Structure formats: structure tokens, C-alpha cells
């Protein structure tokens, strides 16, 4: 299954940039205000939001650069749940979250696990989900992976510190050498990418 199929909801044949000349949208980092969203906060407890933070940090951890928490991924998840997911998609996410939090398969609630147990628990569920054929409703662990990757690499930290962002280079270098330690361009998912939350 291609990245597109897993990650995005295809918007018909035009979903790929047909002119495709803009592989990576670039940015200047102008400091513009982001309108605040009137958050219709989903009915999740503080513990559940903590779990979302923990899981996002498992997916993209702090290494020599900041991880998901430093990049504000839980806020992104909150925005997506309240503003972007459909009611059915939100319910599927929350049901999955509750099941995951209860930890029936582990015999203990997620919150009560040690750090390494949390890692093992999440890792095992993700491996199973990624090995399975796509389900009609995407499992919670896979949704969290999509949300975390998207939220992290579209954040300022992910796009400019973890990866590299080049803007308005004035020249185009068609065959630049990849040097040791180079970080890939963050680019941007063009307007044609739509997140698959179903």
C-alpha cells in the first residue's frame, strides 16, 4: 500500500498535483498570527489527554531534537478531533482510545504501566494493526501514528529543526550532492493532501 493510500483520502484523479512541479512548498517563516479556533473540546479526561501525549511521544520521541510533545502534537490532535474529524470518525477515535487506555490485552490500565511497558504495549498493537489488512475503521494506534507524523512534521520544530526548510532559494540546483548528516527537506504536503481519519 502506498503512502498516499495510507495517509490521505484521495480526492479523485486530481489529488496528485498534475502539474506536479511543486513537490515541496516552501516558506519564509513570516510571523503571522494564527486565528485561534473555538475548540469544541471532545469529551476526554485529563488522563486521556495525557495518554495522547504519551503515545505521540512514543511515535516521535525526543532524541537530539525535540519530539512530539515539544512540537505540540496533542494540541494538533485536539484541533483535528474537535474541528476536522466527522462525528463518526471522532467516535471511532474515542472508542479506540478508551479500549487502548483500559489495557485489557495487557491486564493493566495504560496509565499504570512503566515507560518501557507502555512502549511494548503500544509497539505490539501497532505491529499487529500494520500487519492486518486495512480495517473499515482505522485502529486507534494507526490514527495516532498518522496524527503524530502529520502534526510533528508540519510544526515549526519538525519542519525547520528536525528537517530542513529551504525557502526562495533564488537558484534551482537540480543535482545537488547529498552530504553526510544532511536532513531532508520538510517541504509541505500540498493542498492536494487530505488526511484520512476514517
Amino acid at each position, binding site marked *: 500500500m502506498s503512502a498516499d493510500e495510507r495517509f490521505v483520502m484521495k*480526492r479523485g484523479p486530481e489529488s496528485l498535483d498534475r502539474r506536479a512541479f511543486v513537490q515541496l512548498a516552501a516558506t519564509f517563516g513570516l510571523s503571522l498570527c494564527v486565528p485561534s479556533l473555538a475548540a469544541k473540546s471532545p469529551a476526554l479526561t485529563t488522563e486521556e489527554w495525557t495518554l495522547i501525549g504519551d503515545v505521540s511521544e512514543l511515535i516521535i520521541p525526543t532524541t537530539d531534537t525535540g519530539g512530539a510533545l515539544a512540537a505540540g502534537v496533542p494540541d494538533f490532535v485536539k484541533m483535528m478531533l474537535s474541528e476536522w474529524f466527522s462525528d463518526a470518525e471522532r467516535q471511532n477515535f474515542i472508542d479506540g482510545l478508551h479500549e487502548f487506555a483500559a489495557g485489557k490485552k495487557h491486564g493493566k490500565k495504560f496509565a499504570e504501566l512503566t515507560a518501557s511497558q507502555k512502549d511494548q504495549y503500544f509497539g505490539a498493537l501497532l*505491529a499487529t494493526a500494520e500487519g492486518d489488512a486495512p480495517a473499515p475503521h482505522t485502529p486507534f494506534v494507526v490514527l495516532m501514528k498518522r496524527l503524530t507524523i502529520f502534526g510533528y512534521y508540519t510544526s515549526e520544530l519538525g519542519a525547520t529543526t528536525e528537517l530542513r526548510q*529551504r525557502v526562495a532559494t533564488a537558484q*534551482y540546483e537540480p*543535482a545537488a550532492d547529498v552530504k553526510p548528516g544532511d536532513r*531532508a527537506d520538510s517541504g509541505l504536503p500540498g*493542498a492536494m493532501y487530505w488526511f484520512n481519519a476514517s
Partner: protein
Amino acid sequence: MSHDFDAIVIGSGISGGWAAKELTEKGLKVLLLERGRSITPADYLGEHKPAWQFPFRQLGDRKRYERDYPIQSTCYAFGEPTEQFWVKDSEHPYGQDPAHPFRWIRGFHLGGKSLMWGRTTPRWGPINFEENKRDGHGVDWPIRYDDIRPWYDHVEEFIGVSGQTEFDSPFAPVGRFQPGMLMNACETHVADSIRRKFPDRRLTIAPSAVLTKPLHGRAACHYCGPCERGCSTGSYFSSISSTLPAAKATGNLTIVTDSVVVGLDYDPKTRKVAGVRVVDKNTRAGKRFTAKIVFLNAATLASTQILLNSTSESFPNGIGNRSGVLGHYLMDHPYLTVSGVIPGMLDKHTIGNRPAGVWMPRFHNVDGQTAPFLRGFSYEASASRANWTDGVSMQGYGAALKQRLREYGPWTFGFYGFLECLPYRDNTLTLDPVRKDQWGLPILNTRFEWGKNEREIAKHLVSDAAEMLKTAGATNISLPPEELPPGGFGIHEVGTARMGRDPTTSFLNGHNQSHEVANLFVTDGSCMPSVAAQNPSLTFMALTARAANYAVDQMKAGAI
């Protein structure tokens, strides 16, 4: 008889801007009517703006889009950074035949779709103007390549087209180009691999209306990438960056925005358009303007809607429409994507976001009818290295995943093929007999389907692309769905007020002049008797410049 203006140009997009420029430069006092709002570079809200500064990280406000932009949001260039450039479908209804749908992509503002267009500007070749006659589909073009060639020169030199000059395809003659942009390492490899096996298939940088050298106060491209967000340095051609400033500089241009044209009045005594009726978009107040000549450049569907709605005793079916062809023969290009992963070249990447693609002009039916289908197809294409968006399809998580996404991914090469659609009488635009929009204009109904020849071409387009990808060593080749997409997605809609030699089978003559109404010219895509397998905009820019100069000559000679 006194007139408000010498000329009225309806529409300010790619062709309307050209009409305004040419007519004002020839000394005419011109009124440019635009149904949408005014636009300046200050309206390029998304330019250079990073993902995290958009409330939805560029995913856009999905629920609002589903409500207000169900059609427009299917366009590849629509999104959070550009949504201000599209009409709300909820406010601008049109009809679709459910079994034969057509996607009408629109931008109502000064500059029209010239702000969001794709910028690929090949010429059409001599064959494209002869093929209707050769195979009998559609009416014969009333002009040949030599008639339009000097106007291609004129347009290219003014708008600035960058492109390669080594390969002169019969379907894309080399023009007056600025230096072309460069192909990247993967594109060069694919081009060389294909050429070794198929010497007649040449993959080159596409001619593109983006500057590589400064021109008329516009800067060379700075390679930021997504042109459709607007360009404050004016590096790609738009009406805002190029033609409208030139027209304004003459002192002969009056721009009136927020004015919806609802019809043209016909005077049977003079056999001319006597006036242009408009409704103020905001106040709904009606107004009428007069001029010696009228250039209709509202884009194919909207121009046809205006013509159909301009009825009189003389023309009960639309002004100048005694032939009955107005609203028929709608064409577009279906786009089909074939892509694959190209192994190797992992030591190379690109710096900068090149806003021009590579492309391959048509290579079938070059010397007569040799393929098992009529006409042919061409490809736009590009290669890039995969990035973090591949992360979700990778197994695993944690530090290992983070490290993998820090590195450049493999090269992916995509062909975006588009094929020539024949003109069919049943692909139509009509006015709804009952429903009207909020400005009193009858709603436009569409009916569109692809024919047998298009389905046959599509098979070859896909198999040829896959074969060429394999030749270049591609793996993971991905093919498009077998069913062709609905019409309209190509945004190359043309043909519903076509030119021709015979007034009984065409709407316009060889100078884009109505056969029956001497002071009426239509020079947007609606004038085209065929759509070729090349992007149409450069051609209707050249037709506009040619028609405008003809019209001025005729006025001077007292013929209009």
C-alpha cells in the same frame, strides 16, 4: 452615435487581460468588466506561509469546504493557502447531468484563473490546426499555424516563457523562450533511458510562463514553489503581474470590478452589440455600458452563458447563434497519473522548488494515421525525492522511524498524461429554463461525457507510460483507475462558441469575430474548434492578440 468607451472587455483573466492590453496600446479607451473583486499582490495571503501558520496545517477547513466548496475543493491547487481564489459553489450554482457530470472550476476576481493556472505554455503545432479537416471530427480551423505563429512570438516575448530550444517537436514548436529551467538528476536519467529505446520520445523541461530572467519590471523566479498562492515578485504570468499593468500604463483603461454581465443588447438596425448589461454584484443595481466593440473573455462556460442569455427577436437562441452551435462541442483534457519509484541516484537531491515541470509532446500519429486511435496525448511529468509523508506507510515508530524520515527518501517519477478529446455535439452547455442565480442570470446546465476514442487513447497513454517507466528501471508502478475522471478536472474547457469557415456550422470567423454581429469578438477558450493535446492558454492568448489587432484595423478602416 456616442459611446461610453471604444471597447468593452468582459473578463480579466488570461485572455481578457490580453484583450485589454492590446486594445489600450492601440489607443482605444477600454472598459474592463470583472464580475469579482479587485486583487492586488497584498491579497496573496498564502505566499511563503509555512504550514504551522495555517489553522488546519494546510489540510483546510474540511467541513466548510464540504459545505461551500464541494466542487472547487477537488481541484489540485485548491487548499488553505489558496481558497480565497475560488468561488463558493454554494453561492454560484450550476447544473450537472448526473450521468454525465462536469466539474466547473472557477475563480471570480480580478485576474481570474490566471492567478492559479498551471503555467505550462507549449505552442500548438501545424498539425493541430489541420487535424479536424484531416479526420473529419469538428469543423476545420479557419486558420493555420502560419497565421498564429507571429502572435505566438508576440505573446511569448511579452509574458516571458522559459523553455528548452534544442528539441523542436511538431506538436510544440520552439518559441521565443527565455532560458529553460533545469531537469533534476532523476528526470535526466529517465529522459536518457527513454530516448535510448524510443528516439522519438523526448522528455524535456516544459515551456512555462515563469521567468528565468527579469522582464518588464518583473523579477526572475525565486523558486519558492507553489505559484497558485500568488507571486509578489510577478515571476509567473498573470493578468495582475503582466497584462493589466501594461494596459493601465497607457492611461486608456478603466476597470470596473464587482459587475456581473447578464447580457448583450443587440441592435437589428446596425447589426451590432448596442450595449452590455451588468448587475452590481453587491447592490444588485443594474447598469448598461456602450462601446464600439465588445470582447467577450469571461472564460469558456461563462462566456457561453452570457451569449445564450443575450436573446432578442433577431436571436431567440442567443446572440449571433443562428447556426445553433453555441453551447455545443464542449471539450476538456482528462488527466491520468502513472508513477513509479526510480532506484538509485540517492546521492543527489534538489535545492529549490522548481515551478516548471518536464513534459513529453505527443509522439503518436505524427506522420499520418498510424496508431489505433485518432489524435494523441502528451505527458507532463516530474520527479522528486520522497519525504516524511511516506512515514505512515512505513512500519514501526519511535527513534528509528524518526531517523528514517530525517533522510531523503527514494526518487519517485510521475507521468501526468492528458489526451485530446474530440468535439462532440452532445457535450453541451444550456441555460436552465427556470432556475436563476442571485444576480438574475439563468443557471448554466452542463452535460459532458468522453467518447470511444478518448477511452482508447487512455489505454495507450497508460501502457506507454508504464513501459517507459520500466525502461528507466522503475519499481512500484502505480496506474490510474480505468474509469476516466469526469470532464472539467483538466480545467482546459474549450469549444462552445467555436471558430470556423462556415457560418452555418460555427459561431466565430477566422478572426474570432461573430459571423453575424460584426462588433462582437470572443477570444477565450470557447472559440476553439479542437483542444489538441497541449495546454490551451498560450494559444488563446495569441488568438486574442491577433483578434484585437484585427478589430482595431477594421475600426480604422471603417468596417466596424
